[in-house]
């Protein structure tokens, strides 16, 4: 008996499954494609994202009350998209960001205060003013100033350096994008806490700063940390 046709048939039938398994061996993330791999009539991801975006935005931003980092919107949108059985593939953060930016550029979200992380800096000559290239910092730089030509009054703020007499704790967040939210709700002022973010890594400078602030010279300081 010739086994070749049987083997060829088996290979043809299992070709898609083999491709999926090999993809999973290469990248663990490919596992999430299993659920939709046998769905024949799929809806484009972009169409689904646009459909759920208003709901995701309202949930993440408390109906637009709070400035919200785009990743928080992504985390609300992802399960909403995943609930569609005919989604063509799982939603990734990078693709969501692309769709979100197109959506905003199309004028569909004019009143949304979507925040993006800083990418680079802007430096003025002579004044040495430095602006981090984040949504909020650029907005404050462009719109937050009104020029005072009068001699400024001497400030009554008591001079401090570091934690002593100024802040009670350092709130270390391993994720970026939460500072604006905390500031919008006046958490640093209401609790006298300094904010530190570390972009998901424990940098030497961040450790040195946090340890230095918590030393004997500032024994009242409690360093606190929040992360995933």
């Amino acid at each position: 008996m010739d086994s070749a046709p049987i083997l060829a048939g088996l290979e043809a039938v299992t070709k898609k499954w083999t491709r999926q398994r090999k993809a999973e061996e290469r990248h663990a993330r490919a596992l999430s494609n299993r659920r939709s791999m046998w769905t024949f009539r799929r809806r484009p991801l972009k169409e689904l994202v646009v459909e759920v975006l208003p709901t995701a935005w309202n949930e993440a931003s408390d109906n637009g009350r709070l400035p919200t980092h785009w990743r928080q919107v992504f985390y609300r949108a992802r399960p909403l998209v995943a609930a569609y059985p005919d989604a063509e593939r799982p939603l990734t953060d990078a693709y969501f960001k692309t769709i979100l930016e197109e959506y905003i550029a199309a004028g569909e979200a004019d009143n949304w205060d979507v925040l993006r992380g800083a990418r680079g800096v802007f430096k003025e000559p002579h004044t040495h003013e430095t602006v981090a290239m984040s949504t909020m910092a650029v907005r404050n730089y462009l719109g937050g100033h009104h020029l005072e030509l009068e001699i400024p009054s001497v400030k009554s703020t008591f001079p401090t350096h570091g934690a002593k007499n100024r802040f009670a704790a350092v709130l270390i967040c391993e994720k970026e994008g939460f500072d604006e939210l905390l500031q919008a709700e006046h958490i640093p002022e209401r609790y006298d806490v300094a904010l530190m973010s570390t972009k998901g890594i424990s940098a030497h400078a961040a450790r040195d700063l946090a340890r230095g602030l918590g030393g004997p010279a500032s024994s009242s300081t409690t360093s606190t940390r929040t992360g995933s």
Partner: protein
Amino acid sequence: MAAGFPFATDIGLRLTDIEARGLASEEQTHSNVWATQQNLRQNGATTAEADYIAHGQRVELNELTGPQFIEFVETKLATNGVKKVIPDADTLATAWRRVRLVHQINDLIAALEAENAAEPIPEDLAEQVAAGLIEHPEQPWDDVISDLADDEVAS
């Protein structure tokens, strides 16, 4: 759990926080479940938390909505006794004297500003600024004016 910050109080998301808020998890993979569990346990995770993560689940802070995140942080700060700063008595006394002086100085500045407004402006000011910038090209225009005014006040 407070990797890199062993001296800090960890207020990160715990399994109890996740369950209390009904937060959805996402999948992640670990090549060595046992090693992951051991590492997590050594860093302060409970057995249930170590199992949760080692068996492929995680919850990012981004899973919290804005109001949920604020409520979470405020609860943790309050639980850990973070309170507004009040300096010692000596510092308060120093601050009191200092701030009285600041108010007196500010009153003086206001009086001098009114007096200064009547002073004449040099007619060739633009030419003097241009000449100053040629002499010191690294200076901005307002530094040149400051030097000119300083000379005029001193004389």
